[in-house]
């Protein structure tokens, strides 16, 4: 299981478009990917769940990845978040 923390830098938080891109990115991997904010956890492959977290600029989220491609997924997702959010 891989885990990393990330502070949302995007002024608008996780809004529709980057959420969609993140879901798309997450769906490339076989692992189970979740994001936690303030104790609430959402499946990153599900756009409604992800958006319902209401992650805003400045929020710290914990991304957890569990599965056969977790190493690759962790690296790619961390990079994706840095570039997009």
């Amino acid at each position, binding site marked *: 299981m891989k885990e990393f923390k990330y502070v949302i830098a995007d002024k608008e938080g996780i809004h529709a478009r980057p*959420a969609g891109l993140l879901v798309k990115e997450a769906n490339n991997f076989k692992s189970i990917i979740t994001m936690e904010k303030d104790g609430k956890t959402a499946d990153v492959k*599900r756009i409604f769940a992800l958006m319902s977290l209401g992650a805003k*600029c400045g929020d710290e989220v914990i991304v957890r990845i569990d599965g056969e491609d977790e190493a690759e997924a962790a690296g790619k997702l961390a990079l994706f978040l840095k570039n997009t959010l």
Partner: protein
Amino acid sequence: MKLIKGKSAFASIAIGKIAVYKKKEQRIQRTHVDDTKGELTRFEEAKTKTVEQLQELYKKALKEVGETGAAIFEVHQMMLEDQDYLDSIFNMIQSQHVNAEYAVGTTSDHFSGMFAAMDDDYMRERAADVKDISERVISNLSGSMQDANVFKEPVILVAEDLAPSETVQLEKDKVQAFVTKEGSVNSHTAILARTMNIPAVVDTNIDLNKELDGHLAVVDGFEGVVYIDPTDEVLDKMKQLQAEELQKKELLQQLKGKENITLDGQKIHIYANIGHVSDVASVLANDASGIGLFRSEFLYLEKEDYPTEEEQFYVYKTVLENMAGKKVIIRTLDIGADKQIGYFQMDKEENPAMGYRAIRICLDRQDIFKTQLRALYRSAVYGNLSVMFPMIISVEEVHAIKKIIEEIKAELTKEAIPYGEVELGIMIETPAAAMISDLLAKEVEFFSIGTNDLTQYTLAIDRQNPKLDAFYDPHHPAILRMIQMVVENGHKNGIWVGICGELGADESLTEIFLRMGLDELSVSPSYILGLRKKVRGINVGGKNE
């Protein structure tokens, strides 16, 4: 004449005949279904059809409004494929033996309700997206897709609300503007209107009366007002505004992409002064070759507490990326006791203009300064960044600044955080700085003359005092002589000199500025093209147009 007030989604003027658009009510009946398998298949087929339609809409939107605007339809597709959404529908059909329409409708209510309850404005808007896609699925289930509007002549569409999918299907030559009863300026509908350049006024609470059909209306997208059956006076005024708008557009067409070069080949940079990230669109729309002054204060004014390094970094990065390599000059924090920012806890001053402000705050409270500098240097990786410091009066101040910069660079290196090259300059806005500009020119890479404050301090006149109007001369020889001196001192030491104060936009001085050899003028975005036109008509060496 009737006057309707609402919120403007796009600032432009439209004059035309009203066409009221009433959506056919989709009454969802709950019926009992025995063949749940068949019902699931029905749903799947409708869903597939909907996804296809969304893909078509995406392609159309891509052409009309580009990638960012079209992206919403990709998000709509994702919502439709979301496992939670689909699970809800499947479970309802299978366990409750209900028809697909009902299952979709109820699921839609559930998810849109979730968004509507969120405390973020943007998220609340997404409720409309869920409704849009769900309604489309239901329409496909019942086989009744309402066609995009067909009109004989260009109309002003009046409706309860428009879904993003309906907006993107509007033919610009058929629909001049739209007015909706509901809606918000944050909605995707409004965003699309802006990108498609269709004047729109939303959230008007207008009475959707079919009797309005055919009546003349004026949509004033600047004020967010709609005039139904306008008086001749209003009509004339609006026609005039429309003509002016058209003129500006034509100017834009003529001058966009053209160089800021005089008849005899002297070039000058014309940049834009802005105060907020949202102004960047205006910078690009007015074809500025760069941002000569980005007032960073808004970051501090907009908040209840000091903006963090991350927040600042994100804003600077965004601006640099949007400007795609064009020069961006960001001025560090320039506030004083006259701008009461509570959390700064500054003492009240007798003379805020000459008080604890700008660089003085930064050199005194280095934690604030370092945070801003760190964010700036980090963002420099993403574009062409210059930074300038306000209110400078001495060489010592510049040395102190540079020392702090070396400190933050060392910190960032130690923390393995990447940072970029930054061109450093100062504002010449005090008589002291003008008088020692020969010494200051050796310390920095450029000067930007802040004529507003320079004039105030030099003439010892408070511009806010109307009693002094008779004494105030913006073209005072003292100021012009100072500008000339600063340019000469700058050039002698191999640095470039620009003006970011209001005087830069004063077209009666443009020729003089060119003769002095100024390298750059940074003005409000709306002045850029007019200034370019002026420059292109001047012959610095001789007779002019």
